[in-house]
């Protein structure tokens, strides 16, 4: 069975290669090929999963080594895979949700002339993401890490003719590269500390390394996670990334790629467990982002950007949980999986709405759509209930566990983190209700698009609704399936070494509080957006609202410091290069030229002058010789 692991990556990679190199001949069939290969990967994943279930919990990890990638004295990196419970979870999520989104894209991208290429990029993404989660060393993980970054870049900028899309793609790649810098430094640190960066040897040797080194490695890994998972301070790219086609937002910027940071931290659990300072920073980053994303999500009128804010916030939950250590890892991953279902479903719903509304994204121009798009409404509604943590649905189980774990951290920290997660739950309920009400309820506020076509909302084709229904199914039942009886925790036990936490207040009380804050959030949103008509033009709003609309001024800060500052720096360096560095050279040349111009005047062309200089020279020589002799 182990030998199938490479095929998991290989199938979509083959698809990407064929689709991207195949040329126009594949325009008609390319999307089917792409979907088929993603599905092949999913079924291989299922087969491996079945095989894994047949073994004892401790023997489930599988390894496959293909060949040596880089080998230099002392530095050894292999193309080798490791499939354990954690990777398996991701494999199923990536290929499962991935396949559904491939199917969805067949309908969504139907009218795009570059659909073949879109599927090529999607396949490339699936391959890279699988490589990321299957790698058995950090360098190969880095390979996948950058690979998903590339796929994300290509897909955000898929509509390259739009300057905004091209800029957003570039921004995403650059911000991610800052995170990648963290990952490379982490690998270098591992290499100098442990002499290797393969998972097994590194994790086995963590207790021999100094805590300072481990903290440094942990912080660098966190930097990487911040870049990929859009956590503060590297979160600014995610909102702009919504320029990409909606299936991309669903797959890459909601369900899978942005959760890679959580994977990285949970995978490196042994390092973080031995570096409490790094863990504390992880929880702080998670908590800050949780609130940051939620606040931004409240103010956005663009449906996808509101959902992007929500993604950021939910990943904040996961990062926070991962920072809690063994009591939180399993819940981080559980929330990651349920979030994968409901957030992908929500994005696909948003795409379906846009599909019916002439690609309008402003929620202030929606309204009353529930009658026109019943399937979309139902699936979106279920996703909505799941994300706000409505009792019984997926989000309820996973989020509640994280809140409990946060309280269980103990001490002042526990109370602060717990309160933040509760507050986040309230805001989540608020902004999601807002999205729901503005889109599907209220009166119609539809506006004709730029070319004057009035929208005629209609339900999307089957290829789009079926994936939405399946994801809604997951949004409803996954949580209960995982959560009841701690199935999921037990499954991940060999990887995460789960410890039971003991929150200072009873679990029941926490659950009650969670439900209560959710109801409050929903209530406030209903009062604001359900009872009153929604203005088509956004009101000016309070200072906080205006700041939140601008991503809490993060972009303005980035622009002022990095973009403007950087532009000035490069301009002045270009100037320095031209006038100073090159100037010295050209100045030397000019002064040599000037000197020779002056010396040239001695050559006046009269033979006599030359003769005099010869005589003079001879006389001087003779005189010198005589003088030397005399001395």
């Amino acid at each position: 069975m182990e030998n199938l692991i490479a095929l998991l990556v290989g199938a979509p990679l083959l698809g990407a290669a064929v689709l991207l190199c195949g040329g126009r001949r594949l325009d008609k069939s390319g999307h089917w090929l792409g979907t088929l290969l993603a599905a092949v990967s999913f079924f291989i994943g299922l087969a491996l999963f079945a095989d894994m279930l047949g073994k004892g919990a401790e023997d489930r990890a599988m390894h496959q080594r293909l060949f040596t990638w880089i080998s230099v004295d002392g530095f050894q990196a292999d193309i080798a895979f490791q499939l354990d419970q954690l990777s398996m979870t991701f494999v199923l999520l990536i290929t499962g949700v991935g396949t559904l989104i491939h199917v969805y894209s067949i309908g969504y991208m139907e009218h795009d002339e570059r659909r073949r290429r879109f599927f090529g990029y999607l396949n490339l993404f699936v391959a890279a993401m699988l490589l990321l989660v299957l790698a058995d060393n950090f360098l190969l993980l880095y390979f996948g890490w950058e690979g998903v970054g590339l796929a994300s870049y290509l897909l955000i900028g898929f509509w390259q003719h739009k300057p905004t899309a091209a800029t957003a793609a570039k921004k995403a790649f650059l911000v991610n590269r800052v995170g990648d810098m963290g990952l490379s430094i982490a690998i270098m640190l591992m290499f100098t500390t442990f002499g290797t960066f393969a998972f097994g040897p590194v994790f086995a040797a963590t207790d021999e390394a100094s805590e300072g080194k481990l903290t440094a490695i942990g912080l660098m890994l966190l930097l990487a996670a911040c870049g990929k998972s859009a956590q503060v301070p590297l979160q600014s790219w995610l909102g702009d990334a919504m320029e990409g086609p909606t299936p991309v937002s669903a797959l890459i910027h909601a369900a899978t790629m942005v959760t890679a940071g959580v994977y990285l931290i949970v995978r490196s659990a042994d390092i973080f467990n031995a570096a409490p300072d790094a863990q504390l920073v992880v929880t702080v980053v998670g908590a800050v982002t949780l609130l940051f994303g939620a606040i931004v999500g409240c103010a956005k009128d663009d449906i996808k950007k509101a959902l992007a804010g929500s993604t950021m916030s939910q990943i904040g939950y996961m990062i926070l949980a991962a920072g809690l250590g063994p009591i939180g890892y399993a819940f981080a991953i559980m929330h990651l999986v349920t979030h994968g279902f409901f957030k992908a479903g929500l994005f696909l719903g948003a795409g379906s709405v846009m599909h019916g509304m002439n690609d309008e994204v402003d929620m202030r121009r929606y309204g009353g759509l529930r009658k026109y798009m019943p399937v979309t409404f139902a699936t979106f509604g279920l996703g909505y209930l799941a994300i706000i943590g409505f009792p019984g649905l997926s989000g309820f189980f996973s989020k509640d566990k994280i809140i409990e774990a946060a309280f269980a951290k103990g001490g002042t920290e526990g109370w602060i983190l717990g309160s933040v997660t509760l507050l986040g739950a309230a805001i989540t309920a608020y902004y999601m209700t807002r999205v729901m009400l503005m889109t599907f309820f209220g009166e119609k506020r539809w506006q004709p698009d730029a070319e004057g076509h009035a929208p005629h909302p209609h339900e999307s084709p089957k290829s789009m609704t079926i994936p939405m229904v399946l994801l809604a199914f997951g949004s409803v039942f996954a949580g209960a399936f995982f959560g009841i009886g701690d199935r999921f925790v037990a499954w991940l036990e060999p990887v995460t070494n789960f410890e039971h936490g003991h929150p200072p207040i009873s679990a029941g009380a926490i659950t009650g509080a969670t439900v209560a804050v959710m109801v409050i959030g929903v209530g406030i949103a209903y009062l604001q957006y359900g009872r009153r008509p929604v203005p088509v033009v956004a009101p000016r709003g309070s200072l906080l609202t205006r700041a939140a609309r601008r991503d809490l001024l993060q972009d303005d800060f980035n622009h002022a410091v990095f973009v403007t500052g950087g532009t000035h720096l490069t301009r002045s360096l270009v100037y320095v290069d031209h006038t100073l560095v090159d100037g010295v050279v050209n100045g030397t040349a000019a002064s040599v030229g000037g000197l020779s111009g002056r010396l040239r005047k001695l050559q006046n062309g009269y033979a006599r002058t030359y003769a005099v200089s010869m005589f003079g020279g001879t006389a001087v020589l003779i005189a010198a010789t005589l003088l030397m002799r005399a001395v």
Partner: protein
Amino acid sequence: MSFPLLTVTAAVPAVGAILTAAVPAARRTAAKWLALLVSLATLVLAAVVFARFEPGGDRYQLTESHAWIKDFGVRYELGVDGIGVALIALTALLIPFVILAGWHDADPLETKSSRWRPTQGFFALILMVEAMVILSFEATDVFLFYILFEAMLIPMYFLIGGFGDRAHAGSDENAAAQRSYAAVKFLLYNLVGGLIMLAAVIGLYVVAGNFSLTEIAEARANGSLEMATSTERWLFLGFFFAFAVKAPLWPLHTWLPNAMGEATAPVAVLITAVVDKVGTFAMLRFCLGLFPEASKWATPAIVVLALISIVYGALVAVGQRDIKRLVAYASISHFGFIILGIFAMTTQGQSGATLYMVNHGISTAALMLVAGFLISRRGSRLIADYGGVQKVAPVLAGTFLIGGLATLSLPGLAPFVSEFLVLVGTYARYPVAGIIATTGIVLAALYTLVLYQRTMTGPVKEEVRTLPDLRPRELAVVIPLIAVLIFLGVFPKPLTDVVNPAVQHTMSDVQQKDPTPEVEAAK
């Protein structure tokens, strides 16, 4: 006596150059095909050298030695180590693509104002450069190397000054003036470097009594040749200066953007991907091999200069308005990485630097040649004159992007392997330098993606609307290069196998050991 394989490998392009130059003026196409065939024959010979080289064997293999100038102990001594083999392979690999890419660059222009361009001369000069570069990678006699190091300036001077880029803003006279400025600057810079090196070569002869690299290194190693500390340092500086000009290292770099900007794209590739590698190669072979103590003494300063090159080159690249100058500054940044890797004095760093030389050659060739195809279509080098090319010429844009991704060292493409090795090797010895160099990966992404965004994406510009996509000849240039990039990115073993033993020798030359990992050191 065994078959003089190394001599033949260098002689084939040299003889080919003479034959190409002798083709009658009217048979221009025949000259092109002849040049291409000769370069392919050289590639075959280089492959034979690669195959015959035994990684586990002696340090210098396939050696040849003949007396040349007896009175001064100058010998015609050849031999290759793994580093030389890798670079010979790179040179032989790139030249056919350079010739193919420059197929029409030296065709006579139809318009009256331009002068007649000797096509034969163009290809003959390229082959001449190839011969000299290959021979310089083989030379183990310092004097022989010096002669070649200087002699290759002559054909390069004519290639830069005589066959400029036709896409030039401004009048023909202005273009000619710019070109001749660039060519003269190239020549003067390198001649000054060469002159200082000549002084050092003579100094070395005075101290050592002969020019043989192997003999001097051996005598130094076993203590029979003592060298005063200050003498060694002066000689080292003399050699290093010449190589730093050639490489080029900040602040001796300003000739490169001019030369690469004014030359045609294939010649620009010849400069940065092939000829400049002689500089970094010589640092490894001569600076470290002959003056190990002085190398260690100078390391801190050189590491700082290399770091400045990395960051400065990348930042200035961001600010460029000319596509080719941008690639030139990117190369300066990359040469910073190579020099950093060499002087980090770790096996990872030096293996990485050697791989970097090869990979940078291929990746820059891919990027620069596609850029050249683009420029020849639109007739402008300015980034601002492009926009939306992706829509009209998707294959061109795609290959350009791959070239760019190779330049920013994306994993899966060859440059990643070498860049990461250099970074790890540097970090192991100088953590702060390693971290500063790592910022280079962000800056590389910045200049590459800005270039791609401004030229390829966005609304289609009016002048760009009719650009044709890549033609078969151009595809024949780009696709093999990309294939090599991907192959070496995933499976660099053929190269590392050859390079690793050579790096071990260099490490023992400078008597350095890799730092032990903390965990092992604690035990």
